[in-house]
């Protein structure tokens, strides 16, 4: 029998001597554990949702552009520079990365969109619809109609834009845009669908068409695209993916800049860090409260057992062993509490992972950091949080037992035995 196992067993037995008190303390600790797991999980879930909503809607977790494209977004600053880039091969290579779940190419422009009755300024976006839905979610906001077919000169309009233009699916609009050769591109398009993203700036200006059609309108070649948007399976892998892709795409041409969302949306990173910090504060506050609970219990235990400690001291037990006895008791208490806490929190966590509570009817959709955020109470699936909470709890229990243990060591054997 190992020495350590022995002291754990002694601790277990000592706890059994005052069962009610031990159970109450353990339950208090268990609730602390459950609270940490739940709050941290919900906050992590919110953080992940913020990151997702900030990247999934339109941006993707990585973007590839000409380094000169932002912020002026000049028409001719295409990926690969003046010669463009073989778009098909670029997309294939990006998709070949194991952490990438989708990649799509885009062309942007701006111009005027006019219906029979009126006209508005529009943000023109040329997409590959089938690839786009692998990367972003804004096409899920298609309220009616279909995504634009290639070569059919079809457009999907933002809901508010369509309303202002007093046009609807099936009607014809004119797109006018200054093109890359200085001429005024103009073409008739049929409205194939209406999209609502929930972001007012987008819904009032977005004009989405097939990549090929916008390239034609803007007098761009088939190799000329402004952006490749990439979806990563795990948003936090994006920086690593960006590094791999930077190396893997270098031979396709100059002027290829790959950025993860952490660099083009740094405010989202700050927000994620803020959430991480809040999680630690929650952990600290709850376990500080737990620590006093444990300390109190153990202190009472050592007072009650003054004579016992006096006896073992008188029999020659070394202070380290006395300490091990008290701390062992706290350790067992902590482990019991973790087990109980897991029992309490597991069903709640599982429920919130699988059945998130949508608070949107109460809270509404909120615009936050250029993403559309829906308040959904859910827990981010992660082993980090319960493991961190369990370790934190056990350490808390052990640390809280040190003071009572020191008291036990200092029990004056003779006086205690004399009953004084």
């Amino acid at each position, binding site marked *: 029998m190992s020495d350590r196992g022995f002291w754990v067993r002694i601790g277990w037995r000592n706890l059994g001597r005052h069962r009610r008190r031990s159970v109450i303390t353990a339950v208090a600790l268990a609730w602390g554990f459950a609270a940490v797991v739940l709050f941290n999980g919900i906050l992590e879930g919110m953080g992940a949702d913020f990151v997702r909503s900030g990247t999934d809607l339109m941006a993707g977790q990585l973007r590839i552009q000409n380094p000169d494209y932002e912020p002026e977004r000049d028409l*001719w600053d295409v990926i690969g520079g003046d010669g463009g880039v073989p778009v098909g091969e670029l997309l294939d290579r990006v998709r070949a990365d194991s952490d990438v779940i989708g990649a799509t190419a885009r062309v942007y422009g701006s111009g005027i969109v006019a219906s029979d009755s009126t006209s508005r300024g529009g943000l023109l976006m040329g997409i590959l619809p089938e690839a786009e839905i692998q990367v972003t979610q804004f096409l899920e906001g298609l309220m009616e109609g279909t995504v634009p077919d290639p070569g059919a000169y079809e457009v999907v309009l933002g809901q508010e834009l369509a309303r202002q233009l007093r046009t609807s699916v099936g009607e014809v609009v004119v797109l006018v845009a200054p093109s890359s050769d*200085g001429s005024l591109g*103009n073409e008739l398009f049929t409205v194939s669908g209406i999209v609502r993203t929930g972001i007012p700036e987008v819904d009032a200006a977005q004009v989405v068409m097939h990549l090929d059609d916008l390239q034609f309108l803007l007098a761009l070649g088939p190799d000329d695209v402004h952006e490749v948007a990439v979806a990563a399976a795990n948003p936090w892998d994006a920086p690593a993916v960006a590094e791999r892709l930077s190396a893997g795409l270098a031979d396709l041409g100059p002027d290829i800049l790959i950025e993860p969302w952490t660099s083009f949306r740094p405010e989202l990173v700050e927000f994620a860090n803020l959430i991480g910090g809040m999680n630690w504060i929650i952990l600290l506050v709850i376990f500080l409260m737990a620590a006093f609970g444990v300390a109190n219990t153990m202190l009472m235990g050592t007072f009650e057992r003054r004579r016992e400690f006096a006896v073992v001291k008188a029999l020659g037990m070394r202070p380290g062993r006395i300490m091990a006895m008290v701390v062992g008791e706290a350790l067992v208490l902590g482990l019991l509490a973790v087990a109980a806490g897991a029992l309490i929190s597991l069903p709640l966590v599982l429920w919130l992972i699988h059945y998130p509570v949508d608070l949107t009817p109460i809270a509404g959709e909120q615009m936050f950091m250029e993403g559309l955020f829906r308040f959904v109470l859910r827990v981010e699936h992660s082993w980090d949080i319960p493991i961190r909470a369990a370790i934190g709890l056990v350490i808390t229990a052990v640390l809280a037992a040190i003071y009572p243990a020191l008291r036990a060591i200092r029990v004056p054997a003779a006086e205690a035995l004399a009953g004084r």
Partner: protein
Amino acid sequence: MPSHQLIPREAPIDRHEPPRRGRAARRVPSSNLPRRDPGRGTLGLVSAAAAFLITLAIVPAAPASAQAGDSDTAREIVQHVDDLLRGESSHGRVTMEVVTDRWTRSMEMEMWSLGQNYSLVRVLSPAREAGTATLKVERDIWNYLPRVDRTIRVPGSGMGGSWMGSHFTYDDLVRESSMVDDYEIEISFEGERDGTEIWEFSLVPLPEAPVVWESVELEVRKDDRMPIEMRYFDDRGEVARTMHFSNFQTMDGRLVPTELSMHPEDAPGESTTLFYEHLEFNTDLDASFFSLQRLRDET
């Protein structure tokens, strides 16, 4: 009409500016105008120039022999220059050459104007764009696009866009201000510069003036009171664009600069130049000429 009463109708909605050649078009807004797009406000003169001088109808110019005597006030001289490029009705042909880092193109155009408020420009060549026409009536601009056979009003949010690929925006075409009425004028230099006797006027917009520039400098040569150069200063006090006037010729009995060239300072080497080939003044046009119907028709 005081144009500052006519604020653009629609708030700009787009972050992305319409692509345009001139980087001049991209500077930071320099005033509290409701438009995001700064840059070009216009003096009457430039609006004239900018507006392809549709408005380049020339009021009876001072006789070429008229010398600006010492009794001329700064105001009177500037008034003369302002009038030079405005006036009643005109009709003419102009070639616009746009030079950018990427391409150079030249368009031949026919134009009609009546006062400041009415103008019509139709592209004659290149063939691909022939028939494309722009109509300006007061603060509104329409384009006719023959390829799709549609007439489109330029919306408020599109006014920052480039006109026909040039360094001028639609805003340049509609923004009107009067050098005399909207600016505080003083002579900042008088004497010989580069071998020519000139006045240099400093024009500072009055508080209420619909002008986006911090100030404007105008150089006028003394012997015939022709404008030579205008420099537009942004809110950082730096030159944002420069307009050169040259090749002074008599057209329909008036001495006018027949070459106007605009250089945006932040795109060195780029320019838009207007070459007037033919001009006639005080033609019998009235406002009814400037109709959407006329915009579409070959005239």
